[in-house]
């Protein structure tokens, strides 16, 4: 049971780290796949 609980906690922590890493690397689709002359969204 300890192994299972600790595995869940570590999974959440690693996923959280991944969240911050991805936020720093990825850009929104409307920016990534358009030029400066394109206006998307509101």
């Amino acid at each position, binding site marked *: 049971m300890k192994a299972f609980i600790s*595995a869940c906690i570590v999974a959440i922590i690693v996923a959280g780290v991944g969240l911050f890493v991805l936020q720093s690397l990825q850009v929104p689709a409307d920016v990534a796949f358009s030029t400066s002359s394109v206006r998307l969204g509101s």
Partner: protein
Amino acid sequence: MAKLIAQLRLVAGAMALAIIVAVAAPQVSSAQQPVNPTANAVQEQQLLKSLKTIDGRGTIPDKKSYVLEQPGRDWRHFHQVTLHWIGGIAILGVLALLVIFYLTRGMIRIESGRSGRTVVRFTAVERFVHWLTATCFIILALSGLNITFGRALLLPLIGPGAFTTWSEFAKYAHNYLSFPFTIGVVAIFLMWIAGNIPNRVDVEWLKRGGGMVGHDHPPAYRFNAGQKMIYWIVVIGGTAVAVTGYLLMFPFYGGLGVGDMQIAQVVHGVVAVLFVAAMLGHIYIGTIGMEGAFEAMGEGTVDVNWAKEHHRLWLEDEMGRVGPNESQSQPQARPMATPAE
């Protein structure tokens, strides 16, 4: 004289008009024949069939946005039709086989009963890595199946609002839990590679059906041939979905084009649904399919008689090395009603 010339001019004009009418008459009659009103229009499907590709010219700087191409239609058909069939047949097929197997064979019991003595099967680190990978896999599988089947199966049940919210969170979980899952797959590969190299014992185990039918107990080391298959499915399948998943998570990086992204999605989808189907078998045999099997990953120990029946060669090695763990008592076997009994 002038009057005569005017009359001649009138006659010449009338003749010219008659000639023109005579020449034009056949064309007029043919134009009045009944015609197919769409015969001259471009039929999209006929055009796509007659041409492998439709070349055009775009003015948008981002050429990746040119999706009006035949491979895009092929991919869409795979994504919306073919993958549904592959996944449905694989997953429902395995589920049906497991139900039939359970109804006919029932839970595989420890034939000689519990000895009350246990032996350590998996260490805490091994169990941690297993559950890290397993819990991530279950969430990845459910969120991935939602992408493929959710709109057809779940949306009508819970409505668009709830389905949108669920799908958004599911996609976030799918992205971010891929990291601990990948770590788990790599750790599993390194941790258990030594015990999962195929050998002659596996051939014998497979010839005897792994003891699944009847009361046979073919010998096995720490991992039998069935477990080795699961191991390599996890390692190879896990690597495939991880690599293709990261290609989809970081689209068009490294000069990849639309076609490459489509291949990545096809591989990701097919491997994933087959992966899920295989893991259903693993989950079955590790829980309700075999008495005493879950304890190996639940508590880390197994009954000596269980090990003797299913992993005799491994138990002999362990007993020669450390002996049974007699300090831990095992609960006595409780009779469980199964449909086959």
